[in-house]
């Protein structure tokens, strides 16, 4: 039975950074991922990563922008740590080989980003996430003797000993179908967000909330789950992201009547108003029957008003996306977009060392909620979050491991057998229920209808009904693959269960928060209400039908809540 000081589940930026930090601190480490590490969804991040590294910039300024961006729901102690440690982390990345953009003096150069008062975003062309992820993986290859890599292993459950401490996981070798117990003194969850519970989403097919649900199932609280970021410009067809750069270059948004509707909603900033404002404006047009395209479900993004040469120079990536994935030449015709799910601010609650309330269990990256993003994440702060808190979790877990003996969990084998039986049962289901793909489709569309840009009590309650109904149907949903080698079908069924957990926690939290803050806009409670709701909502399982809800305070250090104006 493999046993390690630190077992990391997930090999995106957060997981890989945690593995390297834990190894540097002298721990024995294993890192597990259901896909090869470089396929992790961190690879898709393009824009960049924030740090106050320039002499003219200060960490306080970075921290304040983040606090304000979070609509004051972010915990200011954690935000301070992130902003303070950011410069050192960028330099570390530079030293291990990330090919950051240079200025004419050969020093690191920056670009400006939304919501930031300074140009403090470091980047590698438009492949920042990819470049960092691949460089971290280079380091993992270098650390082959210190870090065991378990690539294409799928975690099915976390295991606990008698007193509830997390002591490892059960996982399936996707290539052979073997189910094994992995024992560890500490487990760090780094398994990403749950975007696939929504449709459309900018997230990859593997982003299914596995870790969020696994932690939830062993009693860890989920925090800020109602805070789901919608990006204003996603392709109608498949949710692919069109960067804000298009609007930055002067592209217009037009409704079905060809009207430049942002004049009504944000007469000064127009298309360049903040993300939540634009998403809400688009959704209003669509909801009130002025949508564009077939069935009126979209909005036109008109890039033809930007000089063609400029488009080809500065918006090359989206020219290609339009051509390759929507069959549209954006230099000649408008392209259909709509708001789409992009990021979840919520997740498994942790402190600033990545520790969750469950002893032995850490979390970092999109799976976690520290909370540095509060109600709304600023662009280029999420990569930073994965790295800073990945590193801190890795170091802290390694330290904790030093002072303890390797656990010998008694219940592990029983849990393993339970998971094997569950998988066998899924495979053996008769072909009478629904198909997994159709339940997933309905889940995504329902979440997008009832728990997206605009929310209100009745809609959310309907959404919750649907999620519960789908949870029932998922129990009998059947699959086709009866094999053991690369049975992706059975993994899909397990992932569906995870997504349904995440969806339920999200809707329940959204019903609970009776105000509008950050990404949560309640049409029945359109104002921010600091007196009653300047607090985090926590959701836990309580064995019964409905999750239990509790609150935790928001940490405020320097910055008292103010009205948020841009």
């Amino acid at each position, binding site marked *: 039975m493999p046993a390690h000081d630190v077992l990391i589940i997930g090999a995106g930026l957060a997981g890989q950074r945690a593995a390297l930090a834990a190894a540097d601190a002298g721990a024995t480490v294993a890192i597990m991922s259901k896909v*090869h590490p470089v396929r992790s969804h961190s690879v898709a991040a393009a824009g960049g990563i924030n740090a106050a590294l320039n002499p003219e910039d200060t960490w306080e300024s970075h921290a304040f922008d983040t606090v304000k961006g979070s609509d004051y729901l972010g915990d200011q102690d954690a935000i301070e740590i992130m902003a303070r440690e950011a410069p050192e982390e960028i330099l570390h990345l530079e030293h291990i080989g990330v090919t950051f953009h240079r200025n004419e003096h050969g020093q690191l150069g920056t670009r400006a980003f939304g919501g930031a008062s300074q140009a403090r975003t470091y980047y590698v062309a438009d492949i920042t996430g*990819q470049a960092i992820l691949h460089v971290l993986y280079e380091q993992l290859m270098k650390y082959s003797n210190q870090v065991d890599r378990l690539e294409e292993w799928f975690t099915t459950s976390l295991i606990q000993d008698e007193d509830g401490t997390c002591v490892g996981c059960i996982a399936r070798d996707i290539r052979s179908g073997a189910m094994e117990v992995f024992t560890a003194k500490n487990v760090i969850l780094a398994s990403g967000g749950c975007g696939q519970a929504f449709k459309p989403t900018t997230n990859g097919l593997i982003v299914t909330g596995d870790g969020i649900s696994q932690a939830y199932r062993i009693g860890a609280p989920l925090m800020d789950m109602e805070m789901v970021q919608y990006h204003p410009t996603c392709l109608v067809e498949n949710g692919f992201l069109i960067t804000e750069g298009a609007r930055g270059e002067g592209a217009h948004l037009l409704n079905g009547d060809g009207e430049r509707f942002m004049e009504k909603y944000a007469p000064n900033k127009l298309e360049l108003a903040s993300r939540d404002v634009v998403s809400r404006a688009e959704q209003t047009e669509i909801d009130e029957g002025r949508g564009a395209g077939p069935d009126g479900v979209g909005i036109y993004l008109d890039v033809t008003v930007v000089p063609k040469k400029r488009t080809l*120079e500065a918006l*090359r990536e989206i020219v290609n996306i339009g051509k390759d994935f929507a069959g549209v030449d954006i230099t000649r015709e408008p392209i259909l977009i709509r708001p789409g799910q992009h990021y979840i601010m919520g997740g498994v609650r942790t402190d600033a060392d990545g520790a969750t309330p469950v002893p032995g269990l850490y979390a970092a990256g999109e799976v976690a909620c520290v909370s540095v993003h509060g109600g709304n994440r600023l662009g280029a702060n999420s990569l930073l979050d994965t790295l800073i808190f990945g590193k801190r979790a890795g170091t802290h877990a390694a330290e904790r491991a030093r002072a303890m003996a390797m656990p010998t969990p008694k219940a592990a084998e029983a849990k393993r057998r339970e998971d094997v039986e569950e998988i066998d049962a899924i495979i053996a289901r008769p072909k009478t229920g629904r*198909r997994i793909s159709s339940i997933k489709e309905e889940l995504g569309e329902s979440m997008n209808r009832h728990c997206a840009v605009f929310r209100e009590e009745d809609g959310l309650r309907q959404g919750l009904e649907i999620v519960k109904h789908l949870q029932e149907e998922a129990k009998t949903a059947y699959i086709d693959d*009866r094999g053991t080698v690369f049975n992706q079908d059975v993994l899909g069924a397990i992932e569906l269960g995870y997504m349904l957990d995440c969806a339920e926690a999200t809707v329940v939290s959204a019903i609970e928060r009776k105000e509008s803050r950050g990404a949560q806009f309640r049409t029945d409670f359109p104002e921010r209400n600091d007196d009653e709701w300047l607090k985090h909502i926590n959701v836990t399982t309580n064995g019964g039908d409905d999750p239990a809800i509790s609150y935790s305070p928001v940490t405020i250090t320097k910055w008292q809540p103010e009205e948020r104006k841009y």
Partner: protein
Amino acid sequence: MSEFKLRLRRYDPESGSAPYWAEYSVDLEGHRSVLEGILQAKGETDGSIGIRCSCRAAICGSCGVLINGKTALACHTHLDKAARHAKDGVIEVEPMSNMPVIKDLIVDMDAVHWKKQQRVTPWLINKEPIPEREYIAPHESMVDITQSMACIQCGACVSSCLSMEIDPLFVGPAALAKAYRFVGDPRDAQQYERLKDLAEDPHGMYDCTHCFNCIEACPKGVAPMNQIMRLRRVAGDHEIVDRNNGHRHESAFVTLVKDYGLLHEAELLPRSYGGDSWFGKFHPNAGKELLDSLPVVVKGLMRRKMNPKIALFGHKLPKDALGEVQRIFDTVESRPARDELNLYIKGYDEDDSGAQDSGAGGPEHANNAPDQGQPGQEPEESPVR
């Protein structure tokens, strides 16, 4: 919506039976990807179809396959285009080549692709001392290696590589592109050692036959063959002599063209092995090599691929043409630095004005590679994601 027919190469390792073909019909718009077609078949008809995928946008590198016999990413190939290229209108999808198949369209990347990556010491070996702040590195060199950084490790080039097919030990296009990412990195301390290692390995950088397949297969414009050429040129700068004699062969080639205007086959071999001058043929190494290749020469003569006169005395060019050739050499050699073509610097292959350096556009299919943009042309409100 239109109907497309897919013919997938299926293989179930547990069944004990050989691979087989299975057909599926899907209903999608023509500009949707082959991956979406396969996922529709998988979702609605047969969940046991095996294919790796995640991003659907040519960035995670999971979904390399053969489509109508050519390596490509399934998510980066339109259904209508694939159907047009199919021999009977049915889009044929198979697992990639040069790697063992695990199941259906899933191949064992670890056994080949990742093993070869490990071969090139794929991490930065820092120049000491490591500075307190960032290394000062020229903008151009960062842009230069960003082209190989753009590699998403999909293995398409490995699947399409002709040399790899003949010599499975060949380090291969993706790993060599990775090697250039360090060789070209001014922060790396072991440029020379890396190059010497790859030059002396008989399966190293001189094992590439310039078939262009990897350039054509690469979805990200990495152009591995060009990275291999860069490795060789830098190795040349270091006067690194390799086992295959590739570097000397190359410089003999260049000198001959410079002196004669065209290749002089009879001189090439002796110069490659004996030394790059007219006296090379008298070197003992050259004599041995000439004897060894005699059968090839005789065969060439017999099949009239060569005529004895040209073979011995070389091609003759008119004087002024020779002058032209030499002028090209003078121009290129007088440049202060070698001008490497790089998509990230000059990749405006679609610019209507046509004012850009046309030679630098790179292959047409490289157009999905991310663009660096020029300094000072950053959008004011830059891409926010």
